């Protein structure tokens, strides 16, 4: 527990430093802010245009799909802000930066995250909120007083699922000596989570629920806010799945580090 507090403290410190530095270069900061927002806005327009041409998917309306997409963007933005060591194999294993990580008294995964963090991704949260707001407005959704709290829990659960799968995959680098990652594969699969699962066939639905549970990042939790009662149980399981999958990812990672330390490079 004390360890976790230490890690969170260091992350908070880093983010503070980062944004302080960014704010110090005022022109730079506003330029980036504007360009990020424009980028997200173009994305948004693009999505709306695309969805205008999509016929209804099963019993989901267009605005519901837009809402799911908007929700999905938020855990995804959080995840990609902290977990952006897509070059893990190249940078830490082949170039040997992992050695340096192991000489510091902080959990090595936390250090890798800390070193490759991309705080700018936080803008994805803003665009997710805008998209969700737009869809919620069109759908005339109503919210309970505790919904923001549920929202936070579901978002964290979703981000943890991504984080767990990503960590486990990155940890493969500890075992294999080849240079090719399987990140591209995951990259493709993660696209599925943003659409309602019942548009897919049974096999894909099963995979997205139990094996690579990306449906828990978008569809299931968003269904709660759309008041689709058939999916409530799944939505409730989002944080549980988050903890389980992050636990698995962490276990694979720790196992990989043990192997790395035994075999050397």
């Amino acid at each position, binding site marked *: 527990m004390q360890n976790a507090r*230490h890690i969170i*403290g*260091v992350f908070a*410190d*880093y983010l503070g*430093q*980062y944004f*302080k*530095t960014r704010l110090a270069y005022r022109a730079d900061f506003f330029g980036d802010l504007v360009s990020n927002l424009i980028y997200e806005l173009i994305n948004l327009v693009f999505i709306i245009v695309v969805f205008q041409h999509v016929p209804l998917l099963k019993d989901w309306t267009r605005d519901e799909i837009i809402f799911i997409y908007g929700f999905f963007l938020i855990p995804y933005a959080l995840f990609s802000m902290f977990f952006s060591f897509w070059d893990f194999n190249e940078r830490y294993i082949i*170039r*040997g*930066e992992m*050695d*340096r990580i*192991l*000489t*510091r*008294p*902080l959990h090595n995964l936390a250090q890798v995250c800390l*070193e490759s963090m991309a705080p700018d991704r936080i803008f994805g949260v803003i665009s997710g909120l805008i998209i969700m707001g737009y869809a919620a407005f069109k759908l005339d959704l109503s919210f309970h007083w505790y919904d923001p709290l549920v929202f936070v829990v579901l978002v964290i659960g979703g981000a943890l699922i991504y984080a767990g799968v990503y960590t486990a995959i990155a940890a493969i680098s500890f075992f294999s*000596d080849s240079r090719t990652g399987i990140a591209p594969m995951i990259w493709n699969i993660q696209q599925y989570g943003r659409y309602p699962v019942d548009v897919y066939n049974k096999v894909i639905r099963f995979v997205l629920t139990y094996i690579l549970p990306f449906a828990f990042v978008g569809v299931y939790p968003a269904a709660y806010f759309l008041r689709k009662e058939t999916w409530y149980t799944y939505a409730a399981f989002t944080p549980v799945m988050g903890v389980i999958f992050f636990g698995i990812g962490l276990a694979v990672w720790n196992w990989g580090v043990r192997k790395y*330390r*035994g*075999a*050397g490079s």
Partner: protein
Amino acid sequence: MIRVSHLQKEFHIHQARAGLAGAFRDLFSREYKTVKAVDDISFTVEEGEMFALIGENGAGKSTTIKMLTGILTPSGGEIVINGYVPYRQREQYVRSIGVVFGQRSQLWWDLSPLESFRLLKNVYKVDDAAGERWLERLIEELDIASFVSQPVRKLSLGQRMRCEVAAALIHKPKLLFLDEPTVGLDVLVKQKIREFLRNLNETEQTTILLTTHDVSDIEALCKRVLVMDKGRLIFDGQLAELKEKWGNGTEVAFQFKKRTAPEELRAALGELPCEILRDNEFSLRVKVVRSQDMLPFVLSVVMGSFEVSDVKIKEASTEDIVRNIYSADGEVVSHG
């Protein structure tokens, strides 16, 4: 402080078969070769020592360093440093050491060194007034105050390297590992870093272990040298001993005012075991094996009996010695 006994590390290396058919067979059964990267090395180091670990590429230096820093788990033997077993109590142990990898950076690219230092202080939980004073001292002694607030990506290699040294020392470790710290640096920066390290060693009794290919680093910093070759420790002793053992001796070149024959010189020097070489009628070279006792004698005799216009002393450089060691096959020389 450091006690290493019978340390060993073996690697299993996958042997790829040749050709496409071989690659196909590799899919099913792999052949492994066992390589002994570190083979039964033992040494002890006292607190406050500065010593160098040298050896060719592939001699086992980095594997040894990785085991000493707790990164790798040894296949055999024992290491105890600061009372810890590095690979077993890694997280506690690494709080007591600092590591500088010359070719890798531990500073955040987008932040200034000062901010990186703050983060590292947070990592090591040294957020008190003493830690602040120590950091101020590091900044002053490494002379980095003028650029410590600029983003790291805007610094030159020499500036960055000095910041790296400061970053490794932020928690005031008792033991500092430097893995090729001066690669690619200019003479002035090298000198600054060396001076700093010497001072650190004197005032704080910090034990410093250096691996390097740069012989001048060793000459400037270390009294004690460990030489590794093919995984074994082939020399452990003082730099001066290393020179005597492996050096080609010392050469003194005399320029005379009058013509002088080698025989005259030999007569003056008597029975002294030395070699006299003739360059031309006016200049002769005297080669002695053990410089410490004989050099003063040779100089005083020759200067006393002849009119000398110029003297040059050519000591075997450590670089030559290292070359000698690397080319000779390992005879084990060990001194307590």
